């Protein structure tokens, strides 16, 4: 199978195939390599490659995946190039972007209205939780389609507060 790996602004092809625990893969057209991969715990993978052992933990982030190996953080996007939409709709250049509450809290300010054009990184609304205010930003340029959040409303984690088309 062929996937596209996004890392630090670049997109690289990843070819991979699997037989049992053995994964053969080729990144960026480099030589094919073979790794033994097993899931050890939820979101934790044990990888043996060229006799070396790596413990990789996955964190889901709005921008994609964060893979942590020996304390080093890799922010990586995975895309199936034959599909337009990505696994993580939040980052997509196409399609709708859902802005969700990262944690339970209260909406203290709504900074945009439906129909507004927003730039990547522009603040959309402010959610307060545990006495801290967090500005939720647009991940990319677009037009505000809906604002579900009302100022003063209590929201739960994962609740869609706004959509950007």
């Amino acid at each position, binding site marked *: 199978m062929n996937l596209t790996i996004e890392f630090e602004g670049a997109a690289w092809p990843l070819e991979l195939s699997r037989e049992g625990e053995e994964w053969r893969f080729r*990144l960026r057209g480099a030589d094919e390599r073979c790794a033994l991969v097993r899931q050890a715990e939820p979101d934790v*993978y044990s990888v043996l490659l060229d006799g070396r052992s790596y413990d990789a933990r996955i964190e889901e982030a709005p921008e994609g995946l964060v893979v942590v190996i020996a304390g080093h953080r890799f922010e990586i996007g995975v895309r199936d190039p034959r599909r337009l939409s990505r696994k993580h709709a939040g980052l997509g250049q196409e399609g709708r972007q859902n802005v969700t509450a990262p944690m339970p809290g209260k909406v203290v300010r709504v900074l945009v209205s439906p129909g507004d054009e927003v730039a990547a990184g522009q603040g959309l609304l402010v959610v307060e939780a545990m006495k801290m205010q967090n500005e939720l930003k647009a991940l990319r340029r677009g037009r505000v389609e809906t604002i579900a959040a009302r100022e003063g409303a209590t929201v739960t984690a994962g609740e869609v507060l706004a959509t950007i088309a």
Partner: protein
Amino acid sequence: MFEKVLIANRGEIAVRVIRTLREMGIGSVAVYSDADRTSLHVRMADEAAYLGASPSSESYLRIERILDAARKHGAEAIHPGYGFLSENAEFAAACADAGVVFIGPSAESIRAMGSKTEARRVAIAAGAPVVPGITTGLRDGAQARQLAREFGYPVLLKAVGGGGGKGMRRVDREEEIEAAFRDASSEAERSFRNAEVYLEKLIEKPRHIEIQLLGDRYGNLIHLGERECSLQRRHQKVVEECPSPLVARTPGMREKMGEAAVRAARAAGYYNAGTVEFLVDADCNFYFLEMNTRLQVEHPVTELVTGLDLVRLQLEIAAGEKLGLGQEDIHWRGSAIECRVYAEDPYNNFFPSPGTITRLTRPSGPGIRLDGCVYDGWTVPIDYDPLLAKLAVWAATRDDAIARMLRALGEYDVGGIKTNLGFFRRILDDPAFRGGHLHTQFIDEFLARGGLAESAAPDVPLEVAALVAAIHTLAQTPAANGNGQRADGLSPWLQTGRSELLR
């Protein structure tokens, strides 16, 4: 000794106190709010009493409810922990009125040391150095000039009636002082309708070093050395160590600071455990800042280096026993460092990250101490300070302790929520930290210069991360979104293969 003690607190400190109570064969009574019904302190305690709703104003700050619980469960003494009611003189007095021993100093000592101006007065009277300055209004620019010359530049002009930086001026040179006085004074007048301005010496990039004290009710008072707590973010300590790298290389400094702290505490008639905080300038001059009349969050580093159990000593003192230790019995061995592990996201402006812990691996092995309150499956409540645990290490030298802490941070894995473990990893790897060049603006400067950014990882190939990201993406099986379309954009043949993946 007591037979049963109530802990008027929650989280890791309640767990910490219960551990010593159990070792001493003393019964423990936990208190809890709605949010804490299944928290570790409730599960570990012998008995538990419900206080009220989750907000601390409805539970952990309710003096009457806590005393009712103590009466109902027959607890003879109350350990307040830190925070909540621990430095509340009214609570200490209410315990005494109810015939329950408050494990801490007297209400009078808490009152005296709780007011900054009163504490400063006590410290001056006891001969402890304070930040040079006057706390009453200056007459005019000429007086400001004269005092600034006396204290030495830079100085800080501050509004008597104010705060928040209004009416405040930093002055570096004598030529600027009179103009700065006029500016500060008129700004203070506009902001607070009070033109009065006072002056104090500005301590640049100070270190925060504190002295642990211990005293009984019979006038025996000793110090247990210092803790360096210069690494702070938003005035919250995040990394603490003993010994302080500065004190360790400055002969006689520990003794001088210790004696000054003992004198100030003695003047306040202090007993039980307490801490005197000092600001320290680049020339090793130290100035009394304030006194904390309770057990400190960071007490484990002192315990690791002195080999003492501060909670046990607190209990013995509260039970009326004499301090069995003299100053000559206190010895410091090796080096200890503590990191405060919070449920917060250092990569998103340290935003709190409460939620359910889905995976937990604790560091262990030589020289590790973990004071925590979390378990796999526990939900970090949104109602309280998101401190999950204090990770402390001990080793023979500071360099060894840093290496050990990095090793422990690597073993520590908390899934389901974000933590600041990665932040500590970067701090402990920082050359300025390793060199012991610490001050209270260290973390702000560290973040400003991009200290959190990843360095190159030559020992971890990107290929491994990319492979794992791809496999993880394939292994997940999100439900169809109802329109018959896949929500994840994966092709059907990948889905077919997925059931065989990663068995």
